[in-house]
């Protein structure tokens, strides 16, 4: 069956050519924004990998100073890789499914090239002796790593203000945050400074910045994508995923990265289904769940975007069902026990001995002082706060009251999703309760944590979720993107992506921010 069947009664929508035609073009130049279109043009020799890389490098040179998406750019290495790809294509030799496309990599994902800093002073000069599995798999598929993107230090944040190399700015309005923690990757995609990017998502860090930057952010089910080479934050929550111009791009990158990895014992052994060849098939009938707990405290533009999506899915013939997720509002509390506990343990490795910052203070005369001073100098305030919180909830006398209890509630949250997915295929709601906020406008840590109210439970339960651009908030001066989120059961990526793609097709091509002039 084709996508046409699912679109009965929707003939007035311009979605059929979606990202395939001019809609996929950035109005600012002749280079396609999305990865699949660029890949196809390189393969058809309408353009070359070298031209694509040069174009992206020019865009970075003009826009990165105002956006600060990239911490490091690999111009020479990228040009060399592109020359190699172009030679293969010119010689008619086989190339991978990502041949010649420039990819940005979040700087908590290890690359042999350049540094891997986690946007932290403690890793300021760290050079990874190996590539993360995802980097290895994408480069084998022909992708070209163009640079490393800024994040909230150690991926702890929702605004990319807590980055040792300066705040990242939202390309739609540079006085506002891009979201976080994968804000550099999201800003780079939104500003067309790469064909796609990698992010990591521990409690919403792919989906929330994608929402705030008007692009697609996809968190696969826990274990689907290898974490080997991802600097660990919350090991039972972390997942790498794509941040892209389109669902089609996200599906392709996912397909190239996903699957069991002998180097990550927590990667899932289940075979990865082919999501790219079936992506255009709209399911004949499917059920969209709407939790009533997702309807309060959101900006009007966010609620309106969800309402439009409900109308769209209903018009497509989907069944809309009410589902109950009463533990939605304890997700943040559960998360802020489990994630800091795991972080305090994972970040214990940064001790100033084998790698990373070591204090030069003369008072650090013994090992304890060397550890404590190196860590105090190397970690920023938010990271220190979370290490303290995690250490506290794991400490003698508090373990049962906090950590063990949070793990029990984690099981309840998982059971709640299991029950909801008995009556629906996907759960629809907002990604973030608000559009992008002003840089410096949110100073209370707890208020910042609440940005992730709709995204943390996805990670707690280990299921998959995707944020899709869904319109704009026009009440705040410059139009600001808002996103919707679809969540699906663990390992239900095929149906999640098909439904997301059907929605995307109906929207036409994505819109691009006007480049900042400041």
């Amino acid at each position, binding site marked *: 069956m084709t996508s046409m069947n699912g679109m009965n009664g929707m003939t007035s929508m311009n979605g059929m050519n979606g990202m395939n035609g001019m809609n996929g073009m950035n109005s600012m130049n002749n280079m396609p924004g999305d990865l699949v279109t660029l890949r196809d043009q390189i393969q058809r020799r309408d353009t070359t990998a070298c031209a694509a890389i040069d174009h992206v490098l020019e865009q970075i040179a003009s826009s990165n100073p105002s956006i600060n998406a990239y911490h490091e750019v690999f111009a020479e290495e990228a040009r060399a890789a592109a020359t190699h790809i172009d030679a293969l294509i010119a010689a008619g030799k086989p190339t991978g499914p990502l041949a010649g496309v420039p990819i940005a990599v979040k700087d908590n994902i290890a690359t042999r090239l350049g540094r891997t800093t986690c946007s932290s002073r403690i890793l300021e000069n760290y050079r990874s*002796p190996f590539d993360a599995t995802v980097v290895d798999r994408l480069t084998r598929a022909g992708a070209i790593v163009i640079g490393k993107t800024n994040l909230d230090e150690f991926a702890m944040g929702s605004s990319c203000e807590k980055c040792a190399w300066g705040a990242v700015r939202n390309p739609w309005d540079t006085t506002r945050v891009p979201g976080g923690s994968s804000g550099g990757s999201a800003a780079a995609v939104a500003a067309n400074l790469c064909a796609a990017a990698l992010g990591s998502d521990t409690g919403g860090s792919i989906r929330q910045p994608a929402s705030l930057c008007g692009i697609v952010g996809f968190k696969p089910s*826990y274990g689907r994508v290898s974490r080997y080479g991802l600097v660990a934050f919350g090991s039972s929550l972390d997942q790498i995923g794509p941040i892209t111009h389109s669902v089609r791009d996200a599906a392709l990158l996912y397909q190239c990265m996903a699957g069991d990895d002998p180097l990550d014992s927590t990667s899932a052994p289940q075979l990865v289904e082919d999501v790219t060849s079936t992506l255009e098939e709209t399911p004949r009938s499917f059920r969209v769940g709407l939790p009533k707990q997702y309807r309060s405290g959101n900006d009007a533009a966010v609620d309106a975007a969800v309402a439009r999506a409900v109308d769209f899915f209903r018009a497509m013939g989907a069944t809309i069902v009410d589902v109950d997720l009463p533990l939605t509002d304890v997700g943040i509390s559960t998360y802020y026990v489990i994630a800091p506990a795991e972080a305090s343990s994972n970040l214990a490795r940064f001790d100033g001995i084998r790698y990373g910052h070591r204090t030069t203070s003369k008072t650090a005369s013994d090992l*304890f002082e060397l550890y*404590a001073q190196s860590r105090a100098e190397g970690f920023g305030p938010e990271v220190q706060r979370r290490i*303290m919180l995690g250490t506290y909830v794991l400490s003698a006398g508090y373990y049962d009251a906090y950590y063990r209890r*949070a793990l*029990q509630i984690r099981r309840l949250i998982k059971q709640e999703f299991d029950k909801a997915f008995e009556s629906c295929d996907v759960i629809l709601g907002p990604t973030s309760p608000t559009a992008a906020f002003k840089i410096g406008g949110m100073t209370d840590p707890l208020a910042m944590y609440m940005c992730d109210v709709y995204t943390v439970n996805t990670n707690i339960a*280990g299921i998959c979720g995707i944020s899709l651009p869904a319109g704009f908030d026009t009440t705040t001066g410059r139009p600001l993107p808002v996103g919707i989120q679809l969540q699906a059961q663990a390992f239900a990526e095929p149906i999640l992506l098909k439904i997301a793609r059907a929605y995307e097709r109906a929207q036409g091509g994505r819109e691009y921010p006007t480049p900042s002039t400041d």
Partner: protein
Amino acid sequence: MSAEPTPLTIEEVRHVAKLARLAIAPERLPAMQAELMAILGHIAQLQSIKTDGLEPMAHPLTLVNRLRDDVEQTGMSTAEILRNAPATEGEFIAVPKVLGGESS
């Protein structure tokens, strides 16, 4: 188990900082205390949820003891490993005197 978190004293904050190997300056301790109290105050909502008899869920997957075959593989060279070390002596990582030094 009370619904309210036990107030965190400065002494406890100092103790947790020691456990966490973080040299938090004495003048920073009251701010850290206040921030942790605010977060713990919010987290206290977990105490009102009934969890009797529930098995804790430490991980989304139920994988156990996944081991690879025990075959010899080429590892990283000493030079690659030492490249990131803050202080080295020959083929070793240099550290301050250990014996008689740990004050914790």
